[in-house]
């Protein structure tokens, strides 16, 4: 349990700022009524950045103490696969959370199926960029 705690704290300390910053921006736009100020396509780069930052968090986690125990031991290729797949998992969970939030608060963050699919695609592309960099830099 202590090892798991140490493993979790490392990416939280080193990299959580990145997805937290994107999340705060996203929530601010929705809840502070800024959606009239930003362009209609604002969520496309935000989802891309979301993918970039969440993948960066996972990449940092892969370098944490005891990471081998909790994320496995990886080659360049398998690290790329793991990071893209974890980004996909985060993207799915994010969309499910938005869906639940929409249902509970009577809002419409998910406008259409096409919008939701585009959101996940942008997240995956962002994740793939960081995963590629992680794989190249992996020793």
């Amino acid at each position: 349990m202590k090892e798991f705690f140490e493993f979790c704290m490392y990416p939280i300390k080193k990299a959580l700022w990145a997805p937290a910053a994107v999340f705060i921006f996203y929530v601010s736009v929705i809840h502070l009524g800024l959606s009239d100020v930003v362009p209609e396509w604002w969520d496309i780069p935000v989802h891309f950045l979301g993918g970039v930052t969440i993948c960066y968090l996972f990449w940092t986690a892969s370098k944490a103490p005891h990471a081998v125990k909790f994320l496995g031991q990886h080659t360049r290729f398998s690290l790329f696969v793991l990071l893209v797949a974890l980004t996909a998992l985060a993207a799915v969970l994010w969309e499910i959370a938005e869906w639940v939030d929409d249902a509970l608060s009577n809002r419409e963050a998910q406008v259409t199926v096409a919008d939701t699919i585009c959101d996940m695609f942008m997240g995956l592309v962002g994740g793939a960029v960081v995963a590629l960099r992680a794989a190249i830099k992996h020793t």
Partner: protein
Amino acid sequence: MKDFIEFCINALKKGGWAPIIVFAIHAVLSRGFSAYAHFPLLDIPMHFIGGIVICYFFWAASKTPNSEIYLGQHTHFSLFVMLMALTAFATIMWEFAEWTRDALTGKTDAMAQVSISDTMADMLLGLVGGAVIALRAAIKHN
């Protein structure tokens, strides 16, 4: 490259049969009998089973020779994480494919993705199916 092709072929031989069978059943039910139009609830078990079989495929792949190069070396916990993540990736790819098919065919009366709720439920069910196998894989992992 030769190693990678061998890895893919071995993974397909070992675990590919499961998703292929489920996909074939899905195709027959969908194209042959329009079963999803007659019984919309059929979608629910099919996505759950889809999650099970795709996760089983990845589990089988993780046990083939050279899998440590392409999927890494795993502990019980990390195998569970990896399998869940790969199932999520496959789930997104499936939904992309359904969306693309809907967009290309343009048949509004026979759309695979009828609503956001339907798409979200499909992905959630796929993940739950995957979790069942990922848990089993993690327990049986040595």
